[in-house]
């Protein structure tokens, strides 16, 4: 079984804080991490490797420093890593991103493609299903459980608003996975040493058979017209009082607003 996991390097948005004066984001010094849902997807792939000897390839599209998360993935147990990087990919929206990734995936063999449900820096959840469309694969998103019969069929637990569904799909197919679905393993010391001994394959736009007009900014139907910070709402009053006074203040406020 050959599995490819699509991963993304993202800023650790839980570390992003607001400047209390200007209301803008403080991004300086924010560390980069492997996107959590992608890591959950990688964990499933590695479990299938443990059980069935699957071969696991990780791929990312991003700037050269995205090498870090590919090495981390190899230290966790991935066999092969591909970095898709080229200035021609810059400014890509989800559609152009998915085109480039699908172009690279077409150069590879796979039975199963796994992506994270969404990346924490954009939260769109679009690239996985878009790749599935380009590759004409059935997709199941919001996966929180996975079993393989060792031959061809996957039984998948898919999260829904009301609970979950149990779905069956044959390979080849594409799944998008939730980080909460499993607990990703840690890198091992041996794995870290190996990961830095192994090669990360670097692919540029020339390696994939996608028309350059479909890549990057020129291949992106959506464009950011403007971005702006939301004017910070005027903060209310903050009281440092004992609990008796606090209760009085709160009750008066609720009365003032006709809530009680």
């Amino acid at each position, binding site marked *: 079984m050959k599995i490819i996991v699509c991963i993304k390097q993202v800023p650790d*948005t*839980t570390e*992003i*804080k*607001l400047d*209390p004066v200007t209301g*803008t*984001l403080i991004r300086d010094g924010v560390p980069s991490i492997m996107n959590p849902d992608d890591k959950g997807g990688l964990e499933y792939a590695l479990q299938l490797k443990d059980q069935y000897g699957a071969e696991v390839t990780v791929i990312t599209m991003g700037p050269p420093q995205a090498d870090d998360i590919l090495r981390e993935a190899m230290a966790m147990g991935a066999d092969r890593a591909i970095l898709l990087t080229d200035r021609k990919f810059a400014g890509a929206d*989800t*559609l152009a991103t998915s085109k480039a990734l699908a172009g690279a995936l077409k150069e590879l063999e796979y039975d199963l493609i796994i992506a994270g449900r969404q990346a924490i*820096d*954009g*939260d*769109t*959840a*679009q*690239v996985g299903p*878009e790749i599935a*469309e380009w590759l004409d694969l*059935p*997709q*199941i*998103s*919001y996966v929180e459980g996975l079993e393989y019969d060792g031959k061809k069929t996957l*039984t998948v637990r898919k999260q829904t*608003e*009301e609970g*979950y*569904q*149990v*779905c*069956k*799909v044959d390979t080849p197919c594409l799944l998008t996975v939730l980080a*909460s679905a499993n607990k990703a393993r840690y890198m091992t010391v041996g794995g870290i040493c190996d990961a830095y001994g192994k090669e990360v394959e670097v692919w540029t736009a020339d390696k994939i058979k996608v028309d350059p007009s479909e890549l990057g900014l020129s291949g*992106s*139907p*959506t*464009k*950011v*017209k*403007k*971005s*702006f*910070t*939301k004017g910070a*709402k005027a*903060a*209310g*009053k*903050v*009281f440092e*009082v*004992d*609990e008796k006074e606090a*209760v009085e203040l*709160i009750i008066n*406020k609720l009365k003032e*607003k006709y*809530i*009680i």
Partner: protein
Amino acid sequence: MNIADYKNVYVFAEQREGKIQNVALELLGKARDLADALNEKVCAVLLGSGIKDLAATLIAHGADEVLLVDDPSLDVYTTEPYAQAIKAVVDAKKPGILLLGATTIGRDLGPRLAARMQTGLTADCTELDIEAETRHLMMTRPAFGGNLLATIMCTDHRPQMSTVRPGVMMAKPADAARKGTVEDFKVNFDRSKFRVKVEKVVKEQKNLVDITAAKVLVSGGRGVGSAEGFKKLEALAQVLGGEVSSSRAMVDAGVTEHARQVGQTGKTVRPDLYFALGISGAIQHLAGMEGADLIIAVNKDKFAPIFEVADMGIVGDLHKIVPALTAALKK
């Protein structure tokens, strides 16, 4: 593509088990405003099996036309039958705008369709407007948890597609006197492509709570500590006739379930009253609750960012204040 051929505002009228989802009605409300600005029609696309009776509700909430695709393969949602049905509608009708709810269904279907139609899709929009001069759709969405907003446009491709999270737009009140048409739309499905089988649909009681409908939310974060602490919040919610909700920290800690999570990866809420108790106020959380009318925050840390958005902040110990408040309200 001649974009001038593409007209009217289409809404994916999501139903589950024969129940129209609130988000579909909210989208119809926004679609009505957009269509009126463009002097065009609102069309609802209703997919399912045996769901004809739902069309009247869609008309009452703002649809001029309902396109009904009724097929057994559309009974329980899977991607491909739904994608084929909407693609067929788009090919035939050429919509200018197509809106979907950012539900687990809409977020699965939207990108599959966008790729199939080679158009753009903007996720989780919080504002939708028409640019007067160009008549293009302006799609505004939060980035990095809500403080930075970006307005995105899709000027050269049609339809212009957006998803909107439940609770963000306002539905218009039902007007039973509104008139509209219902069209039985026939789709020639390629059933060989239906490759995902749903074997079992399981409902979990814990997921059935709808915090977006609550007028009062008593929300707890890391400062609540444990399930024991959370009980104090439940008691307060009970006297106020509200629900308990939480930040992500409490869900990750297993104290409460994801259905109660407020924020970027949880729900967007706009209750009359939101108690933020022991919630520091990460921007991901603020994105989900800053639309509340009245926000009262209690936190030990006087520098907690939650105080930046609270209407009233109390620096103190929620474990003392909450039970005292509950007791006082009971009187």
